[in-house]
C-alpha cells in the first residue's frame, strides 16, 4: 500500500523547497568533511598560551 505524501510535499513548491533544503544539507556536510574534518585545533589554555604568550613560538608571516 502506498503511503500518502505529507501535506507540504503535495504541492510543487513544497517539493521544490524540500529538495533545495535536502541538497543544501548534503552539500554543506560534504564541504565540511572534504576540507575541515580532522583539522582539529587544540584550544586548551596551554595551546593558546603557546600561540599568544611564548617568545620562542615558531610562526611565519
Amino acid at each position: 500500500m502506498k503511503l500518502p505524501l505529507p501535506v507540504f510535499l503535495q504541492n510543487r513548491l513544497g517539493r521544490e523547497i524540500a529538495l533545495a533544503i535536502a541538497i543544501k544539507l548534503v552539500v554543506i556536510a560534504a564541504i565540511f568533511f572534504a576540507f575541515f574534518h580532522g583539522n582539529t585545533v587544540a584550544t586548551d589554555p596551554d595551546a593558546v598560551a603557546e600561540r599568544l604568550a611564548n617568545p620562542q613560538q615558531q610562526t611565519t608571516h
Partner: protein
Amino acid sequence: MLTEELVDLSRLQFAVTALYHFLFVPLTLGLAFILVIMELTYVITDRPIYKDMVRFWGRLFGINFALGVTTGITMEFQFGTNWAYYSHYVGDIFGAPLAIEGLMAFFLESTFIGLFFFGWDRLNKWQHFMVTVLMALGSNLSALWILIANGWMQNPVGAEFSFVTMRMEMTDFWAIVFNPDAQAKFVHTVSAGYVTASLFVLGISSWYLLKGRDLDFARRSFRIAAGFGFASALSVIVLGDESGYTVGEAQQTKMAAIEAMWETEPAPAAFTLFALPNQKAERNDYELQIPYVLGLIGTRSLTKELPGIKEIKEKNRARIESGIQAVVALEKLRKNRDDWAARSQFDLHKADLGFGLLLKKYTVDVSQATPEMIQKAVDDTIPKVAPLFWSFRIMVALGFAFLLLFSLALFYSVKGNFIEKKWLLRWAFWFIPMPWIAAELGWVVAEYGRQPWTIYGVLPTHLSVSNLTPANIYGSLAGFVGFYTVLLVVEMYLMTKYARQGPASLGTGKYHGEKASGGALPADAPAQKI
C-alpha cells in the same frame, strides 16, 4: 603555520558567507511584520482579500526563509573550523548569545513558521494571527541575540581576560545584553530589514499596477508597504544616526576612518561629503565638506572634539608600548603564576594586552620589537579608509533615497492617485534591489571598519584563525561560492516565478489569469511595458 594568505582567505570566506546570508535575513525580518499588519487587517475587517494578501506574501516569505535556512549555520560552524582561537578566547562571552539565538531561531521562529503555513485550517483567525505575531517576534529576537554578540565584538564590555584560562571571561551578563553598541546595531539592522521588505512589497505591487492586473490586491499591498516603509525608512536614518553616535563613543578609529578625518578638527567637526582619501599621504584630495554635521552626529555637542586618524595613531602607539609590557608579564605568568612582580605588571597594563598582541604579526618575541615593527603595528590599527568612506556614503545616500520614495508613495497613497503616477511605480519596481545593496554596505562598514581586530582592542584578527592550510580554505571557499551561486539562482527563479503568478498562485479563482470572477483581468490582457 600561520600565513597572511591564510588569514586573508579565512576573512574572505567569512565575508562571503556572511554577505550571502544577509541576502535572506532582511526580507525575513521585515516581511514577517508586514504579514502581521496584513493579517491584523484581515482579522479586524474579515475581508478575504487581506487573507489572500497574507497567504501570497507569506508564500514569498516562505521561499526566502527556506532558501536562507542553513546559510547562517555555516557561519556559526566557521567559528569552530576557521576561527578556533577566537572561539576559545571569547567563547565564554560570545557563546551565550549565540546559543540563545539558536534556541530562538529553532524553537520559536521555526516552530511558528511551520504553524503559519500549515495552521490555516487548524486554527481560528485570531489564533493564526497570534502565530504570525510570534513568528515575527521570533525572527526579530533571533536577530537581537546575534547582534548582541556582534555588538560585543565592536565594544567588548562586561568581560575580563584571565591569564589562567587564557581567555576572556564574562563578568557582567547584563552589560553585554545592554551594550549600547548592540542596542543601536539591533534597531538599525531590523529597521533596514523593514525597509527591504517594504520596498519588496511596494515594488512588486507597482509591477502589478503597471501591468494593470490584480488592481485591488496590489493597491492594498502598495498602501501597507508605503506606510510601513515610510516609518521604517525614517527609523533607519534616525537609528543609523544613533549608531553613528555610539560608534563615535566606542570606536573612534572606525568613525575617523569612515570620515577620512586625518587631523583632529576644532569642534564641531565638518562632515566630508566628497573626497578622494589618500591614505599614503594621510590627506584627502578634492574635499567637499559640510560644517558642523560630523561633530553633531558623533558627539551630540558643539564643543566636544572627535579625534582624527593621526591623533588616534599616536594614542595607539602608546597603547602598543604599554601592551608590550602586558605580553611580557603574561609570558612570565604562564611560566610561574606566583610571580607577583609579573602579576602587578600585568594588572597595570592588561587593558592594552590586545595592542601588544598586534606585534605578534611581526615578531614572536614582542619585547624585541623594533621601532619599525611598532610603526607597522601602529599603521595596522587604521583600516583602509577609502572602502569605508565610500561604502558609508553610498549606504547613506540610498537611505535618503528610500525615505524620499516612501514619502512620495505615502503622500500619493493618502491622496489616492498613486496608480496614475507611473514614474513612481517604475521607481519602486526598479529600486527593489537597492535595500540589499545598502544593507551589505552597512555590514562592510561595520566589519571591515573593525579591522585589524576580531574583538576591538582585545584580539587581533591574525591571532584568531585556525591552523588550516590555504588549500583547505581555497577548496571550501570555491565550494561555498559555487553552491551559494546556484542557491541564489534557485531563489531568484522561485521568487520571480511566484511573484509573476501573483495571487493567482493561491488558486482561489479570483485573480489575474484564473477563471475570472470578481473583477480579475483575463490572463491574455495586454501587458504594458515598464
